[in-house]
């Protein structure tokens, strides 16, 4: 990630916050008074989410996080307050929880890509969930500062890698679905691939916001003001063209056999940004074939597969059993039956195409 100017980002976020609150005929002072009734003694009151990211609409609610000194009950839930004709969601975290979460994030970001992913997937349950940690880091305080923004570097890295794993999975599924001969699902998988590619690129530039519903709008604004010279213009163009093409396909109800190639090209380009080998094996399955007598329990042509994680799935035994997974390029050379088998295994949760799965073998 090219070095970001935290001062400039802070100014931008504070402007967004003030503008968004003013549009709702309120301000930080009023928010503080509202919260005082619930939490009189606090270290920080942060405005978070769409309002500070400059994305809020007329119906967006106000998301606040209060950081307090004392230890809190683990069973707490967000509170919803109503004031100034607006719903205000308030979440409380202790200073200790926030500190431990930031430490976890910093330590995670120091590792290589596969370890980052593994740590993300095994995120400790007794600290802030990643999406709330992101809100804290991006949050604007009632003192008109961004007191946690200096953690943006580690957040960017971890979040970009998390989205990259999603892009990778969507690429695998696009290719499998297309090779298997499915007509509509490749479009759905491609949509997912392209929007996650958008998020990877933005996150690497310090524009991190965890909610997927904002990906496309954020991308539009990000590319309109693009200043990060480390973002390759070719990749931006590729993503833009693919997004436009996908929307055209949705309108026309058409399929496009070149969709998989476009998604694969995006994936390879993003791999370059992360210095990740695009030919890393896709994943592995833990499928165990039931004993022959049991596998034919249903009919002469049906095989019931089981896996150590307790899943079961019915497979047509005339097709191959998905016990091995090729590299990304090899997917398009699979037979339709083999691709269909692998796709079915992934949908049945018997096949994990995450990088963490591949790396563990």
């Amino acid at each position: 990630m090219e070095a970001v100017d935290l001062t400039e980002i802070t100014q931008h976020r504070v402007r967004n916050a003030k503008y968004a609150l003013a549009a709702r005929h309120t301000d930080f002072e009023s928010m503080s008074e509202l919260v005082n009734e619930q939490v009189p003694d606090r270290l920080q009151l942060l405005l978070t989410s769409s309002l500070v990211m400059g994305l809020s609409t007329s119906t967006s609610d106000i998301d606040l996080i209060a950081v307090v000194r004392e230890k809190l009950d683990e069973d707490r839930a967000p509170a919803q307050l109503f004031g100034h004709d607006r719903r205000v969601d308030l979440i409380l975290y202790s200073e200790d929880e926030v500190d431990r979460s930031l430490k976890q994030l910093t330590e995670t970001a120091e590792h290589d890509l596969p370890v980052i992913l593994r740590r993300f997937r095994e995120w400790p349950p007794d600290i802030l969930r990643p999406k709330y940690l992101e809100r804290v880091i991006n949050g604007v305080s009632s003192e008109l500062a961004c007191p946690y923004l200096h953690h943006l570097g580690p957040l960017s890295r971890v979040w970009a890698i998390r989205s990259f794993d999603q892009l990778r999975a969507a690429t695998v599924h696009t290719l499998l679905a297309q090779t298997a001969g499915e007509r509509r699902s490749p479009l759905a998988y491609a949509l997912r691939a392209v929007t996650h590619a958008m998020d990877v690129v933005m996150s690497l530039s310090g524009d991190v916001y965890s909610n997927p519903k904002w990906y496309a709008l954020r991308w539009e604004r990000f590319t309109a003001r693009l200043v990060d010279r480390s973002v390759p213009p070719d990749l931006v163009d590729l993503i833009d063209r693919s997004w436009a093409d996908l929307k055209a396909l949705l309108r026309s109800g058409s399929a496009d056999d070149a969709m998989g190639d476009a998604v694969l090209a995006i994936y390879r380009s993003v791999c370059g940004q992360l210095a990740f080998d695009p030919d890393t094996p896709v994943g592995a399955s833990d499928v165990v074939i039931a004993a022959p007598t049991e596998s034919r329990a249903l009919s002469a042509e049906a095989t019931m597969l089981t896996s150590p994680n307790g899943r079961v799935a019915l497979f047509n035994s005339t097709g191959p059993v998905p016990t091995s997974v090729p590299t990304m390029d090899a997917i398009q050379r699979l037979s339709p039956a083999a691709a269909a088998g692998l796709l079915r295994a992934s949908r049945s949760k018997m096949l994990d195409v995450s990088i963490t799965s591949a790396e563990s073998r």
Partner: protein
Amino acid sequence: MTESSHQQQPLWATGADLAQIEFFPRLRFGMPRHGFVYLRPFIVSCWHLAISGRTYIEDAEGAANLPSYLVTLKVGLAELLVAVDCLLQGIEPLDDHHRLAMLFEHGLSEVAVADAARCLSALGLDHPDGDGESEIAKLVALWDAIQEAFPAELPNPLVPGGQGELLRALRSWDRLLRSAEVDPGFLADLYRML
């Protein structure tokens, strides 16, 4: 992707009359279901519809001049409906990776008897750059139809007094689960995820 590589045969016909879609047919008909197996997914479905479903519609109502945002909202709502569809079938929801793909290939069966074409049209996914107000009206109409047809009242925590409604629903569900000898522990997890 190029114009010349497009297949000519359309994958779906556009146009769906919401009035022709039957919502929650099996739930309303009455099917033999074991409480021990079915209560938890049913309650989680209620939760998803009451919280996330409402939030998507609320978000959409502010997105008239933001077509990019509307597309991703529609996708999010579609994925939610697929998750609820799986739960009402009594199966585990598909991973996020596959939910939209499921809708695109097969539509819905429990939330609505609607093939892929009808679902895409009802959600407006076949009009990714459609007029904002029309697209929002479409989503609101769909949501109203879902609420109208759902055979239980969904609490609304997004309005004043709504959290009280939600807490009352949670208490009812807790009693229901205990009477069926189902562990109600997951209710606390749902509440924490608000």
